[in-house]
């Protein structure tokens, strides 16, 4: 029966046939370019909207806000659509570039920051939505001269190669060890399953996390 079904569906498809072009009809950037641009033109890009602290009123255009980042109050101007990640990398002066932009879709973990104590993907948080939250990036955990326990363990156990995923792993694991200072290997794996590494550092990331926990120096 399912085969009949298949046949039916298949009838609609005719590969390598000129009529296949109907398939392509729907392909293209959605929305006519001109109309799209008109909409943008009305956006009044230069207007600086009211302070974000007045809820209820629609904000658009450029918005001034203050972020509580690595223990400092930082002023910046964003659009409502600016992600927290882009805000700190592309808008903040001087920028904070520890968190990396890799997938921009919440699927790699390189942009992880700690928001009110919890690791989150900063590419999936709007900057306007991060106001009033306590934000910590990898820079806020330690510096090259004064690394936290997780950072030290990463260096010692070679938990990094190209290092582009590393800030995300360090941040995720630092936050996790605060919550669970004495994890098993399986718990560590589970905690960083939202962080991906292309160079293949996982085994040593696990080692580093467990070593940092053992040394009791997650902070």
């Amino acid at each position: 029966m399912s085969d009949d079904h298949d046949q039916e569906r298949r009838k609609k498809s005719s590969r390598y046939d000129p009529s296949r072009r109907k398939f392509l009809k729907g392909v293209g950037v959605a929305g006519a370019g001109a109309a799209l641009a008109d909409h943008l033109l009305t956006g009044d890009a230069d207007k600086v909207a009211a302070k974000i602290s007045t809820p209820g009123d629609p904000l658009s255009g450029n918005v001034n806000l203050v972020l509580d980042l690595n223990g400092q109050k930082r002023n910046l101007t964003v659009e409502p659509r600016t992600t927290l990640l882009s805000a700190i990398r592309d808008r903040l002066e001087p920028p904070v570039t520890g968190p990396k932009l890799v997938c921009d879709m919440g699927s790699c973990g390189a942009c992880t920051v700690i928001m009110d104590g919890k690791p989150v993907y900063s590419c999936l948080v709007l900057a306007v939505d991060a106001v009033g939250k306590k934000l910590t990036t990898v820079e806020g955990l330690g510096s090259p001269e004064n690394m936290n326990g997780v950072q030290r363990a990463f260096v010692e156990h070679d938990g990094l190669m190209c290092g582009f995923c590393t800030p995300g792993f360090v941040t995720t694991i630092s936050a996790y060890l605060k919550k669970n200072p004495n994890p098993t290997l399986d718990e560590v794996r589970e905690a960083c399953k939202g962080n991906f590494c292309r160079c293949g550092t996982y085994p040593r990331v696990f080692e580093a996390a467990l070593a940092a926990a053992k040394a009791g120096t997650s902070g």
Partner: protein
Amino acid sequence: MPQQQQTQPQPSPTPPKKKKIRVPRVVNGVEQMVEIEVDDVAGPTWGPNDKHTLLNHRLTRVDGPLKVSGAARYTYDVRLPGMLYARVRRCPHAHARLKNFDSSAASKIPGVKAIIQTPLKEFRFAGSPVAAVAAISPEIAHDAIRALVVEYEVLPHVVIAREALKPGSPEVLPRDSRKPDEKNLRLANKTGDVEKVEAALKSSDAIVEAEYSTSRLHHCCLETHGMVVDYSGGDSATIYATTQGTFTIPDDAAKELGLPQSAVTATVQHMGGGFGSKFGIGIEGMLACRLSNETKTPVKLMLTRYDEFVMAGNRSGSWQKFKAGVKKDGTFTALHATQYRLGGVGQGSQAGQPYAVYRVGDSYREVYALQTNEDSSVAMRAPGHPQASFAMESLLDELAYKIGMDPVEFRKKNVRDDFYKHQFDRGAREIGWERRNPTAGGNPGPNKRGMGCAAGTWGGGGNDQCKVDVTVSRDGSVVVAVGTQDLGTGTRTFTRAIVAEELGLGIKDVVEQIGNSKLGSANSSGGSTTAASLSPSVKDAAVKARLAVAEKIAPLFGNAKPEQITFAGGNVSGGGKTITWKQACAALPAAGITAHGVWRSELQSRGVHGVCFAEVEVDVETGKVRPIKMVQVQDGGLPLNRLTMESQINGGMIQALGMALWEGRTIDADLGMQLNPSFVDYKLPGSLEMPEMIPIIDDEDKREVVIGIAEAAIIPAVGAVANAVFNACGVRVRELPITPDKILIGLMSERRSA
């Protein structure tokens, strides 16, 4: 002045004798062997591998603290005052001609500063760049590329390799007028005597015929391709590039900017992965330069992740058909191979069969490039090797099962180089091969374990492109400078370590300067040639620096001969006297000393061996494959840094695991578009996919030379995992990746035929 030198040559000592040697050069990530001339004089040696104080030890990365704290600045992190952000508009059609391009609406968006078209008028794959925009923010740049109105004449395409072979299929590229019958199929080479092979097959005890294929893979560098062009209309420019070849940037960038090459500096301090895909400025670099030139403003163009999947290159797919014969005693007698390289509009790559590790008796092969309307493949870690190795290792396994021979013994019987034999023994011991059930699928219960093994080889030799300066100052500080790049491979660390060891210092006492085209030249990091190209030059410079320091400070030691002054543990000794390094350096002239190192062929070599063993568990009721353990034994001459070498081996195994079990481009035949250009749908292995991993540096290799192993590391594990899956569940999946659906379908059809 040079002219004067020509007319009045300085009397010089008789020029050193020359010798010719063959070395690998890397062009666009692909190794080519070339003949060069080098001095035929005795130079420095490394000495025994077990006599080093820093090299062959476990050294933590010198750039580790920067990278773990977010302080390392990558190209993607560069932000210059007034800098514009650029985005690329791609063609969504697999084959189309540009009909109309209207940028009027886009150009009216406030904040848009420049719009340029690429030179392309006909697009042969979905994802071809059509235009680029520079604007004051990334968001506005993105608005603008979407506001461009682009009209196409859509042309017929073919994106499925097997379809491209059919007579009625559309033409991917215009035909070569000299070879009118070759449409999408181009013969690359034919080797061997087909009649001999036929005869050998006839006299074989068993024959296996099988077809294997591998998917197009993506590098997935976490840092996408791109660059920041720092040019404001003056007479010089700096290019921040994420590149495997610092010196592949200035030439082309200068052309785009209309500047002399010497006015352009390329720099790459840290980079987020390349894996073979980052050489030259690329089309994205060309667009960035043009936008910067047009606006006389710095421009940053980093590809989006979607761009990266569809236009930044990929690993060639493969399709290989074999007929092979074997004797009952395990002698491989004959191989007939037809190989298709699936490189989209490019030529693709695939190591020729028989794969270099094995002796197969008589062999014949035909290799074709089979083209489709997909973006061209580019070099990716060991181009062509994992594809060929997977197929050959699967075939070997099938032959071994057919004659009922242990796969390890079968391999040991047929390896070309006996050096592999102890590697197989070592790997078998580490994985616990004796626990393996020789009957495929023979273990009880739904969760069945199985093991497999495979071997790989690679060159990894160096060439003479690196020029290194070591400067020792009067305050005792030491700088080693060369324009090379560190891809995360540990280049910075071993560069420092070689110099520190030579001068008897600690690794922190030396500072390296790399990643800048104004420093001494260096080769591109491709073909695993970096270590073997760079380390001999560094060693040469370090030795020269040591001798130069010794010569200057000789008076402190009763004018001892430079060779008799020794440097160890931060001290300098000679003539029975010992002083600290700092005290010694105080006797240097005001400018210190600088030594120039050149490449020494005797300090490096090529040719490495590796075997991988894998254990997996297959849930035959769901088709899930769970990797349990992987062991890889890898030689590489003198290990410069054991810690990072092990990490490289791990990384190779993990990327191979991804290729074996999850990764692959999915493309829609009718739309001609990739359906999984994201990290959600293109599935890289993550933390829960990791088995226990044992990277083993093979110290049986006593060669006192440096050889690169980065690419070697990715080769054998693909076949090992595939063979382990078969051993576990009895289903031979010949088309990578081995996903649960294929195993379940395989089991269903087995049941049906039983």
